[in-house]
């Protein structure tokens, strides 16, 4: 394999490995902008992944599988939002509780589906764009879900920064009391943002099981949900920067897999640590940079909203 082919393969792998984290991170951006911290992303991705596998296995229809994963994601997002908004619980603890619960449920229900072959999504070459040198084979020789992720990022950015809903979203995330006084429903806005974010995470999970791994294994996400939450901090709540972070993570995974396949003389377990350490490192570096120019995070993030006080 010559150098260009190797680089192209690594870069295409980067897009594939980065997509699940990208979807979850963009979703978490949206959720956190409304002032809700959803640490349950790991669990929601697991739920989305297993739901997609089960529905794909039972119906043989990818479309239904994705719809079902989205529905489960929305449901769990609403559960998290309900706990945060109705019971005013500690959001970090709820997220961890949701993840423990879902990792248990998915492991329990997924036993019969381990190793089952499912209908997967095949690649679709975009007619003209895939002819482009390098970029064509990296970005436009993927599957439909990857193309969907290309659309989701600008759409989310537009939703946050260009719509009326986005205005309410940011108001609720910054000054919920002022927003409520102006007639915006804090409860409803935060519920919608959490549900949408969770749907994106579930879609990321579905991508992981339907396309990336093409099947279900217990704990298939291996921490990608936590990584997505970490990347949102790195991205200072901007979906575009979250894409950058997700692809960086994807690059680490892709390189690691390629090096292993090429028979590099490094333990796969040591290589496996690289993506996690990279995210931690990237977080630290971006924080050092932000010390000079503080990032504008949602002020009301993870603070329970008590309207009666």
């Amino acid at each position: 394999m010559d150098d260009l082919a190797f680089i192209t393969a690594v870069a295409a792998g980067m897009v594939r490995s980065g997509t699940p984290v990208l979807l979850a991170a963009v979703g978490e951006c949206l959720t956190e902008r409304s002032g809700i911290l959803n640490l349950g992303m790991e669990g929601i991705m697991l739920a989305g992944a297993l739901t997609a596998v089960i529905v794909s296995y039972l119906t043989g229809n990818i479309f239904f599988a994705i719809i079902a994963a989205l529905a489960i994601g929305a449901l769990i997002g609403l559960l998290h939002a309900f706990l945060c908004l109705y019971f005013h619980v500690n959001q970090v603890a709820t997220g961890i509780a949701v993840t423990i619960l879902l990792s248990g449920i998915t492991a329990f229900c997924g036993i019969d589906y381990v190793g089952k072959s499912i209908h997967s999504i095949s690649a679709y070459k975009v007619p003209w764009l895939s002819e482009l040198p390098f970029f064509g084979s990296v970005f436009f020789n993927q599957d439909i879900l990857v193309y969907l992720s290309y659309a989701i990022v600008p759409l989310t950015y537009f939703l946050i920064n260009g719509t009326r809903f986005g205005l309410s979203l940011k108001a609720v995330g910054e000054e919920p009391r002022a927003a409520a006084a102006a007639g915006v429903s804090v409860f409803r806005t935060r519920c919608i943002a959490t549900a949408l974010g969770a749907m994106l995470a579930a879609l990321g999970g579905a991508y992981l099981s339907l396309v990336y791994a093409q099947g279900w294994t217990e704990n298939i996400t291996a921490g990608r949900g936590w990584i997505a939450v970490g990347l949102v901090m790195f991205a200072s709540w901007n979906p575009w920067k979250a894409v950058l972070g997700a692809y960086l993570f994807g690059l680490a995974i892709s390189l690691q897999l390629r090096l292993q396949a090429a028979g590099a003389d490094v333990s796969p377990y040591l290589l496996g640590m690289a993506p996690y350490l990279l995210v931690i490192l990237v977080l630290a570096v971006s924080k050092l940079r932000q010390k000079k120019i503080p990032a504008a995070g949602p002020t009301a993030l993870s603070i329970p909203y008590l309207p009666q006080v």
Partner: protein
Amino acid sequence: MLSKAAGAMIAFSGSIASMLFGFVAVGIFLLLSGRNPATIYTGIFTGAFGDTFCLSETLVAATPIMFCALAVAIAARLGLMNIGVEGQLLFGAIGSTYVALTMPETTPSWLMLLLMALSACVCGALFALIPALMRVFMDINETIVSLLLNYVAALTVEYLIHGPWQDPTTTSWPQTMAFPPCAEMPHLEGSRVHLGLLVALIIGFLLMLVLHSTKFGFKAKVIGSNPQAALYAKYPLKRYLIVAMLLSGAVAALAGFSQVSAIEGRLRSGLSPGYGYTGFLVCFLAKHNPITIIVVSILLGGFLSGADSLQLSEKLPFATVNILQGMIFIFLLASENALKSWSEKLRLKLQAAEAS
């Protein structure tokens, strides 16, 4: 105002109620999956507390949970969420394994165990130092960093047992050589209950003393509940946060030490079926109180070992434990504030009755 005792009673009843709700919810789940919850629950109960052997196995499972929950409690006192206890446990196991494999086999047992414990504590504390420093000096959420480090710790164990530390006699098994006899903790006659339990109990009582009747404990409480006031009072905030995380990591590491020394006798994967996460839940159930932690650890340890015994006979997946833990956790979190607002309403009603 409700009296302090009544407040504690209400808080504790919240823990009990959420456990009951958790059992009911999982019961429904088991029913839906075609199993009989009644037989499973009685099976778990007899498997956990049925006879002296079951009881001893419960204590064995409770020991690492106790260490982990106490570790979480130390950090929680200062308002830190150390979910990295799982990774710190594993690094403790690595630290003590290093000592057990390198010291000569003729080392006296007490010295060997002491060195293993020390090495475990140092490794666990240093591993906890990473999120601590990032939190204190860069204001990065310690929860996320310590969660990610749990995966790094698990991969480090895998690396060691597949690579440099792998038992040279059986290349097919990813595990280290068995420890020499002097590296094995003393057991209670005829059971697997080991010295670690005693150490955990002592740490629990010590922690109670430190938190409730020393200056350190008081300052820690102020920092945890009102950091602004602590800053105003010129408390050495950074130093306290770092010391708390170091202590937390060291205590979690003792769980890893006692598992490799007393139970496994070597380092291998699957060392912890998530003791760290269970410990996190236990600490919340016990409202961060060290003595309550001891009691709740034994309860959850019983559930773990009871469910373990049903894995074969009832074909009950071990994941059931996680489902129950998640359910209890969610009910607990919800009940906390529901109870608070309920008792507040009660208080207002009483006041109104008194006034009229």
